[in-house]
């Protein structure tokens, strides 16, 4: 596909650059419907500023037609799109809700250019490892950044009510100013409830799986039930656990235990069955008993399955603990904060808490993935990474 790129008809080549064409068209729309802010805006953009925003968009769009090197093109597009977006957003301060069609058209044009930039970056094939790693990070980073840019431009430009959807900048500001409160919540919910429940649930699931593996009757009886249980809405036990174990973190840990138990059980049993008859025969020819076969052959072979369960459980555990807090907590905790702040219509605080939860979840998942990478490096899915 890439080789025939330059030999096509000029029209086809033009259409191939549809993002650039779109950006140019939007720039024309923007020029036709200037100014960028409604007439009653407090601090409207001056003519020079408008020119500074228009210029990078047009230059970057035109560059798509003349530049053949994807690296140069990506660099030009990156600077053009993000420069324009940054200027547009920084001009919004004090002018909330006053953006006109021209503003929207320019943001969209910059977004199309960013898309073209990602396309150009995706087309780069590099042999060097660090450059490849950088690309791997840069491409999704641009996507994420544009999610935030469009969110910011939309909420502030169109003057979306704060309650409905606060702009990311307000959420970030709130996050920074309430770090102590957020840290207390994290300590209550994650360091106490999630960690304890996760350890107990996964440990119990693992031990039960070993037992079920040893006793065939138990396995045959327990496995269908375990499979059924892992599909059930186990989060529903939250009110019962709060009633049994009180409002503090113990009840949340109990919910997390129950939620994480079944995925661990089912996956470990599946993992213990993952070794082939050849390998087991080999162990038998070494005269190894059940315990030796388990420790030296079958548990290592089950590791990918066990880590899969640990990963699934990491998200389930966090969600379980937060939802369980809706049914009653002491006055600290992520679920408590979310439910009370929404009652007080402090949505920026709720979003800040959500951001922290997402970050904590990602770190939790990442740590487990890292441990997996170092302990099961021999597995095909981790080799040649």
């Amino acid at each position, binding site marked *: 596909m890439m080789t025939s790129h330059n030999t096509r008809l000029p029209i086809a080549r033009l259409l191939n650059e549809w993002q650039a064409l779109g950006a140019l068209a939007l720039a024309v729309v923007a020029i036709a419907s200037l100014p960028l802010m409604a007439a009653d805006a407090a601090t409207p953009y001056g003519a020079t500023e408008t020119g500074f925003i228009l210029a990078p968009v047009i230059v970057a769009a035109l560059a798509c037609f003349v530049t053949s090197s994807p690296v140069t093109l990506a660099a030009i597009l990156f600077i053009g799109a993000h420069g324009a977006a940054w200027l547009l957003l920084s001009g919004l301060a004090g002018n909330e809700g006053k953006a006109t069609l021209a503003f929207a058209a320019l943001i969209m044009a910059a977004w199309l250019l960013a898309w073209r930039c990602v396309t150009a970056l995706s087309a780069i094939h590099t042999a060097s490892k660090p450059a490849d790693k950088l690309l791997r990070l840069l*491409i999704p980073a641009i996507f994420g950044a544009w999610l935030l840019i469009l969110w910011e431009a939309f909420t502030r430009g169109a003057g979306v009510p704060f309650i409905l959807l606060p702009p990311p900048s307000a959420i970030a500001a709130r996050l920074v100013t309430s770090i102590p409160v957020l840290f207390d919540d994290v300590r209550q919910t994650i360091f106490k409830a999630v960690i304890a429940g996760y350890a107990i649930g996964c440990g119990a699931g693992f031990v039960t799986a070993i037992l079920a593996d040893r006793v065939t009757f*138990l396995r045959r*009886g327990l496995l269908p039930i375990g499979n059924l249980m892992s599909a059930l809405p186990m989060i529903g036990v939250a009110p019962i656990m709060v009633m*049994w174990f009180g409002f503090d973190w113990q009840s949340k840990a109990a919910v997390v235990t129950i939620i994480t138990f079944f995925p661990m059980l089912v996956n470990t049993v599946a993992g213990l069955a993952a070794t082939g008859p050849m390998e087991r025969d080999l162990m038998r020819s070494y005269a190894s008993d059940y315990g030796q076969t388990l420790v030296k052959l079958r548990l290592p072979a089950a590791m990918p399955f066990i880590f899969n369960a640990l990963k699934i459980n990491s998200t389930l555990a966090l969600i379980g603990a937060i*939802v369980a807090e809706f049914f009653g907590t002491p006055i600290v905790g992520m679920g408590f904060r979310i439910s009370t702040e929404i009652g007080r219509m402090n949505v920026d605080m709720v979003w800040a808490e959500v951001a922290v939860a997402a970050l904590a979840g990602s770190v939790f998942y990442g740590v487990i993935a890292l441990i997996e990478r170092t302990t099961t490096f021999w597995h095909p899915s981790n080799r040649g990474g």
Partner: protein
Amino acid sequence: MTNSAADRIRDHIIPVATIVVAIIAIWYVGAIAMNAPFQRDLDRRGNTTSTTMEFVAKTLSQPKPILPAPHQVAQNLFDNTVMRSVTSNRSLVYHSWVTLSSTLAGFAFGTVLGILIAIGIVHVTALERSLMPWIIASQMVPVLAIAPMVIVVLSAVNITGLLPKALISTYLSFFPVAVGMVKGLRSPELIQLDLMRTYNAGTLATLLKLRLPASVPFLFASMKVAVAASLVGAIVGELPTGAVAGLGSKLLAGSYYSQTIDIWAALVAGSVLAALLVAAVGIASKLVARAMGAQTGGRAA
């Protein structure tokens, strides 16, 4: 034939039945043990002395037990499903239906969205490299935790009823479908793709005639996960006090008024619903596989 039936009874039914009986037995013992302190307290205040058997019977028939006995839950379930008219707002059938409708709506949206995302990812390199990491990251957002906020905020702009709950279910169910479908759409081998090229088939024809049929087993496997997630989303979406009907609101009401038997009955109803939904997807998958002429016994990876 009789031999295989006997095998089936020995290898599956007897072990499962034994475990189920064991669970029920443990449940009874647990109910007696957990309800005993309160009952002892009650007896002391009422100055009643009872034999062991009477005491046990009383622990199993409290109106608001700490752990209701299985027969109490079964009785409550029976009363609230069979004995009540379906339209009554105490009927569990009614609440299950409310939950089921938003589950199905969210599941349908989520499946369509997941398939569309997967098609986009398979065909556009830029999308694959930029979107895929974020799809995985999107599941790190504890959306169940913000479900109440989504409901409250949407009701502030007069979007109420089924749609907000369905949105949460959509968010939870699109992920397994998208991931499974990407795998499925990529499952045709190079030799098959080459054959399509020799037919001069375009991207669209390859998608319709090769990639989509090849992805069907993957689709159903991920739909099983998605429908369970979708139900959880719908139930949690009903937790905010704004919701007046559904299994989630039943759970919340039960927890406010300590109606433990009601909570357990709602929980059992939710479990039955989940089992039925997963089974329905399983049956649909078998029917589709047969209609597409798959060999019996073939399984998805």
